[in-house]
């Protein structure tokens, strides 16, 4: 699971959960893969992110890479910054671990990079 995916996932579909976001990450096994860098793609993705959530998520698995807490004003032209974001968003892969609902503590296992977000009958 990439941190870009994590930035969108929520447990709000569960009964009794109102926001369910962001999910806490417990990473057991983290891999890094090299992926082609496309500055245009990254600068268009950035405004779609919840930036503080990305920074915290990267922090929590020890892969922060000195991301600023606030988004730089003219990041589109800052290639170094875009590369850093590219790395955090796409190249870090949580292979095994857990996602945890911030409201209920319900754990969603991640196996082979695939989070299992399936809810039981009594949870919806």
């Amino acid at each position: 699971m990439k941190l870009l995916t994590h930035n969108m996932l929520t447990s709000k579909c569960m009964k009794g959960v109102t926001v369910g976001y962001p999910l806490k990450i417990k990473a057991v096994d983290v891999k890094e893969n090299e992926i082609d860098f496309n500055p245009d793609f990254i600068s268009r993705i950035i405004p779609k992110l919840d930036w503080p959530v990305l920074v915290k998520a990267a922090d929590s698995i020890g892969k922060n890479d000195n991301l600023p807490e606030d988004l730089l004003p003219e990041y589109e032209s800052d290639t170094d910054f875009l590369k850093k974001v590219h790395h955090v968003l796409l190249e870090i892969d949580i292979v095994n671990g857990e996602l945890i609902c911030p409201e209920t503590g319900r754990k969603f296992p991640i196996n082979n990079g695939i989070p299992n977000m399936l809810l039981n009958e009594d949870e919806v």
Partner: protein
Amino acid sequence: MDNCGKSSLSRKCDRKQKRCQHIVEKETGIKCTLLASKSIAICNAGLVNGLSEETVYQNFIEYGPIDNITMVPGKSCCFIRFKNIESASRAFENINGKLNIGQNNKPVYLSYVESIPNPKPIYQNKMPPGLIVIEDFISETEESILMELCNFNEQENGSMKHRHVKHFGYEFRYDINNVNKDKPLEDKMPQECDFLWERLKLRHIEFKPDQLTVNCYKPGQGIPPHIDTHSAFEDPIISLSLGSSVVMNFKNENISMPVVLPRRSLTIMSSESRYAWIHGITPRKLDIIPTQNDLSVIHRSTRISYTFRKIRHGECDCQYTQHCDSYAKRLKSKSNSIKNKEAMELETTHVYDVYDIIALHFSDTRCKPWPNVLKFLHSLEVGSILIDVGCGNGKYLGCVPNVFSLGCDRSFGLAEVAGQRGFEVFSCNCLNIPIRDNTADGCISIAVIHHLANEERRLQAIEEMARVLKIGGRCLIYVWATDQQRNQQKTSYLKQDRKNRKENGVVVPEQPTENVSVTGDITLPVHQNRTQFQHQDLLVPWKLKAELAPNNEENVFLRFYHVFVEGELERLCSQLDYVKIVKYYYDQGNWCCIFEKTK
């Protein structure tokens, strides 16, 4: 009272008049007045006494211009409003107690009133939406040719209580308000009418009816208010007026619109006017409608109407559900549909468990992306976020560069396959997508929601996709269609069976349908692969190759499908008022819908 003088006759008149006035006030709430005014009540005669609007009109018009007549249903009084007080008082003087048009030819008693109840709106040529009246559509010569086609003079056959009627093509049965669609009549559509459709073509209207009802209305006859049964006929319904003009009343909720159908005009009832407006002809000898200046009166003579309709095969899927018999039927069958608990059990056993077992074999057969899905994916901008709901082996996840494609599937087996191919996926049920609201620029769901076992769940899945979409984001949904043979073209699904490639006819199953009990007391038919679907809810067999099967033997697994009829998917998507349908189409045995989130 001054105007009644002192004779005994006058005193009698006075007494009667007072009593009647009292009744009018009590029954209608309209105030009687001693002062002369434009409005007059007939206090002791109305519709319940057999007094007609025509009689009122004919007796009052000679005293001056009238601008409204109100006959109150169920009451023994009625109201006339003149254009001016002078005319009203002239009528009063001459009629009160003297004109014998009351019950049993008794005299009527009048009173001036302050106002008249529910005056008819002034006729302003307003039409119900979708109604078109083309005046002088045929010439007088053509009119007489058509009128001679059906000679009603001597014929008593097919006579109804209120009018003569004759059918061509198919018989309209008034007992069931429908036609026997599989019993065409020997009387075919008369060729003499063909020129009408050529003439309509000049106006860019394509219409080729296969049913004709000819009605003959004598003056005084009419047709009760009705809407033509939705499931019986297509849209539009076209009617030709011969021999006489008439006023047809259209009604929708509380809006009533009299529409003049002139002699030799063609009336096209389409869309809302065809589906949602009640129309009828009041039985009377003349039509009186208030216009800007006074009352406009049409004297009726014998009118022959030719009503042309096209038989509908299948069910109606209009949006005017309140008036739609097909909709009512669907609602009824929906309440008999598979309940949620059983639907979930059915999906677990006959969808998810099966896909987990056949995942590898299934994935091997799903390689080539469908061109129209690719077209949708290529329409996404750089930096878009795409969610593939029910991504299977991920065959659409790597199709477009510079778009972040995220897949999910309910089958762990298939999600695993997609993950191993390097795609970003997670497991979830499409009824609860664990993505934040307003996130995705694009969403696709290819051959997924036809695995959900009732309509509530299929709609919930669509709602979920719409929820995760951004405003302005688009979603593409594909579902399997009941119809695998459209426009004489067999789908590749049918053509995979070699013998289906040559024959032209419909491919029907050769063996009788087998039924399998699935869950609770639900039994479903088993579909025979490479044949046309015979049911909507059914089980489709998957033959698992021996080398991929757990026990190394060829196994057959049954997957649940709900195959969609024409219009069904579009209707389902249109239930969400925050999306608009961008495109709805048929593609190789599938119904497909693209919608956009608007708010």
